[in-house]
């Protein structure tokens, strides 16, 4: 569980119980059967919204085709009842299982895609299924009536019982959603949404988490679909696989508040009755007017509250009432893990003949060097020398064409980004990759989770890492509010939280003023004293002269020189690469 999870869960559970009871009491007083139907539909669409919210809201994997799962649930329940005489009491759980399986089948190929491509590929699935079902002759399937055992077949004569069942299932869905949000699962998803590469470099296996959330989301959507079929009693492919069905969870969630527990519920509670009553009141007078009003309503709300109602209301009225609980951190410096200190210790990283080309350009060409335990290696070179590409190859963002890279004898090549991280390689980026909406502490905990630490140890490691870089006072503030220097240090802390053996720092000093630069250098100095091994990319010579034990100079992808700082700085080839041959000639003249 995340920091402060217990308070949030208790508060959420209480609110949930209260809302459910009030809703059920209100629903039990309604006698008009049409309004009763609307009251059953609200929790069903809300549940569908909850399922979409997990995948697309928290995880950021935008799905335009969630009707696949909804429809699969609906058809599983109906076909099992028609052909196998299976009661929907078992049919709905069966549908959820099939929905989860569909999540696996759809996820394996589709998660190879990102961004727009993922969203569009998802759009294609329900439509393909729709046409296949039409072809197979399932245009219209109706529920067979069972007059002898109505209860056994989930056939209630009183519509309000469907509402009760729908509310129970929705409550279950919301509890799942709360548990996800407050666990490392939710943190991993939010990290992936905000910055997938940073999450991976922090050791998070994004593919696995995305798969898990898709399976969970598929099961929940199928549950909603199964119940929907029971309420409607007649099923057509368009009513459960159609493009408007896919739009429904997107609309209710975005309207209510994306990536919030209550968003889908708020959206469904307002939009479903609005759409249905418009349909009933105006649909007969001017067909189509209900669609126009509904469309205008969602546009207006979206312009007024772009993040959804929940966030707008919270930001306007509850910002002060509900601060993120600031965790209490020890202000003392952590116990130093004293490792044998000294240069020229045992070799930790060995790189030999490493190459990587992009088409005809050899960005990294037969690079060899090594890093000894406890030393700081400075990797310098002009722009375009291949420094960042070298790091990308080392930590698995790019594959190597040839060569060897081994950490303590174990090869780092051919592994995924998060696997390299788990070997004990921490990484920071040239452009800071933070999770802007998460508090600083959570930003750093991502790194600790990535290393596979259990909850308690992860919080401890993150707190310790923050203290080591001197950011423990800002632990509660959102990463979006930090200064550039603080963000650099935060990224360093995130890498440290995974208890790495080797840190790869990519231009950690970029964009910092002189004094800020010195502060970061001091932090690095302290880390070295604690026994950390660091390889750092940097442009600025003077900063590197202060901390690096040895230099490797890259130019045009090749190692130009390596050795002690003083020797390298006087190397004619290095001076030429940095300052040009003319300068060198003038110096000699």
């Amino acid at each position, binding site marked *: 569980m995340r920091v402060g999870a217990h308070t949030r869960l208790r508060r959420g559970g209480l609110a949930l119980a209260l809302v459910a009871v009030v809703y059920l009491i209100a629903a039990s007083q309604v006698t008009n059967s049409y309004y009763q139907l609307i009251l059953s539909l609200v929790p069903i669409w809300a549940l569908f919204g909850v399922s979409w919210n997990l995948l697309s809201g928290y995880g*950021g994997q*935008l799905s*335009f085709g969630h009707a696949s799962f909804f429809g699969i649930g609906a058809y599983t329940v109906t076909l099992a009842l028609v052909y196998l005489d299976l009661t929907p009491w078992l049919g709905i759980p069966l549908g959820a299982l099939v929905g989860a399986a569909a999540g696996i089948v759809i996820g394996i*190929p*589709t998660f*190879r*895609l990102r961004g*727009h*491509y993922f*969203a*569009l*590929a998802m*759009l*294609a*699935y329900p*439509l*393909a299924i729709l*046409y*296949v079902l*039409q*072809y197979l002759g399932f245009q219209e399937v109706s529920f067979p009536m069972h007059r002898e055992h109505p209860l056994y077949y989930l056939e209630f004569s009183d519509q309000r019982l469907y509402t009760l069942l729908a509310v129970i299932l929705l409550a279950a869905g919301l509890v799942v959603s709360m548990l996800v949000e407050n666990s490392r699962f939710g943190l991993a998803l939010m990290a992936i*949404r*905000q910055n997938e*590469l940073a999450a991976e470099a922090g050791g998070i296996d994004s593919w696995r988490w995305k798969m898990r959330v898709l399976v969970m989301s598929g099961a929940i959507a199928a549950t909603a679909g199964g119940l929907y079929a029971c309420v409607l009693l007649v099923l057509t492919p368009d009513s459960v696989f159609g*493009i408007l069905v896919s*739009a429904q969870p*997107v*609309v209710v969630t*975005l*309207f209510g508040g*994306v990536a919030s527990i209550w968003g889908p519920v708020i959206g469904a509670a307002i939009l479903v009755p609005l759409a249905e009553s418009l349909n009933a009141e105006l649909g007969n007078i*001017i*067909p*189509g*007017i*209900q*669609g*126009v009003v*509904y*469309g*205008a*309503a*969602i*546009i207006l709300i*979206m*312009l007024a509250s*772009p993040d959804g109602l929940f966030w707008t209301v919270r930001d306007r009225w509850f910002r002060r009432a509900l601060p993120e609980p600031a965790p209490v951190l020890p202000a003392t410096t952590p116990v130093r893990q004293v490792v044998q200190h000294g240069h020229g210790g045992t070799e930790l990283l060995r790189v030999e003949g490493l190459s990587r080309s992009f088409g005809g350009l050899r960005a990294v060409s037969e690079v060899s060097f090594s890093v000894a335990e406890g030393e700081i290696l400075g990797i310098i070179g002009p722009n375009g020398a291949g420094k960042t590409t070298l790091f*990308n190859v080392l930590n698995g*963002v*790019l594959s190597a064409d040839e060569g060897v890279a081994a950490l303590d004898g174990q090869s780092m090549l051919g592994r995924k980004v998060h696997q390299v991280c788990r070997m004990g390689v921490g990484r920071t980026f040239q452009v800071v990759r933070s999770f*802007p*909406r998460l508090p600083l502490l959570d930003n750093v905990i991502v790194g600790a989770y990535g290393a596979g630490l259990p909850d308690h140890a992860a919080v401890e490691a993150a707190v310790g890492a923050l203290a080591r870089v001197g950011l423990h006072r800002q632990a509660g503030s959102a990463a979006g509010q930090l200064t550039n220097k603080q963000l650099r240090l935060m990224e360093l802390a995130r890498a440290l939280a995974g208890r790495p053996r080797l840190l790869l720092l990519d231009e950690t000093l970029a964009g910092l003023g002189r004094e800020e630069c010195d502060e970061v250098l001091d932090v690095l100095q302290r880390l070295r004293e604690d026994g950390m091994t660091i390889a750092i990319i940097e442009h600025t010579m003077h900063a590197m002269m202060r901390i690096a034990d040895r230099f490797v100079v890259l130019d045009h992808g090749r190692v130009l020189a390596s050795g002690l700082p003083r020797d390298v700085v006087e190397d004619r080839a290095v001076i030429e690469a940095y300052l040009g041959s003319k300068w060198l000639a003038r110096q000699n003249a």
Partner: protein
Amino acid sequence: MDLEVLIENVLNALAAGITIGCIYGLMCIGLGLIFGIMRIVNFAQGELLMLGMYASLYLVTGGGVLAFLGPYFGPFVGALCAGPIVFAGGALLHRFLISRVSGLRTAGSLDDGHFGQLIITLGISLILQNGGLILFGSTPEAVRTPLASRAFELGPIYGDATVFLNKARLIACAVAIVTAITLYLVLEYTRLGKSLRAAADNPTAATYMGIDVDRAYRIAFALGCGITAVAGGLMATYLSFGPFIGLDYVIIMYSGVVLGGMGSILGAFWGGLTVGFVQQCSALVLPPQLQNAAIFVVFLLIVMLRPQGLFGRSAERA
């Protein structure tokens, strides 16, 4: 005998695939500008197609201003005139709605404003569909031209096998190709086209270069709307349509754009052509209900195997 029938069917499917494919290609260019280049998720693109059809219908039939052109020229001129009309509508949409959830305002934000675009364009789509139902009625319409029931005959090629080229489609196809080439030349070689591409590529940098990015976006969006509307007007000459026809084509458009590789106008055209071709040729082996499913399967396969599109280049850098 059987071979003759087979050859005739195959050749006719190929011919239909190419002519319809070219019109699809034009339709996809419209979305290619909006989604492929400007990266705006537009769910209302199908409704713009629908508007193009009705604009052409009301221009050239009954008491329309272009009715004097007669049933031979009228429908095609009407299709071209639908372009500017929907262009103006698109500019207004962008000015008042789309610009609030796209462009500089959302560049670099979480999810690049896609969530907002989804909702806004879904809302626009609902309003246009149902508003269309109120204004135009639900009776299927068509821009009738006698050319739709006449065909050029090629052959007999093998035995009695003959290729029939529907005249309405053939002319529509020619108009589509000319429109597409004109647009390509405008985007590639004029000052306007260059500023549009620059604004789409990097809005911040374009601002520094003195390009009015907001205006460039508005023109590009409106152009995307207008182009798809022209394609709609052309399709109206050979197919009957209602206010909800957009839903059938929005997926085809997205398939075409992704197939061709996002960010490329020519690619979008080729993508649309491929989709039309696959759709028509699948009629040879698949029952009618599965033809659209075939498009999606091909679409999924290509997205999986070549996510940069058939004709695109991968531009991603870690």
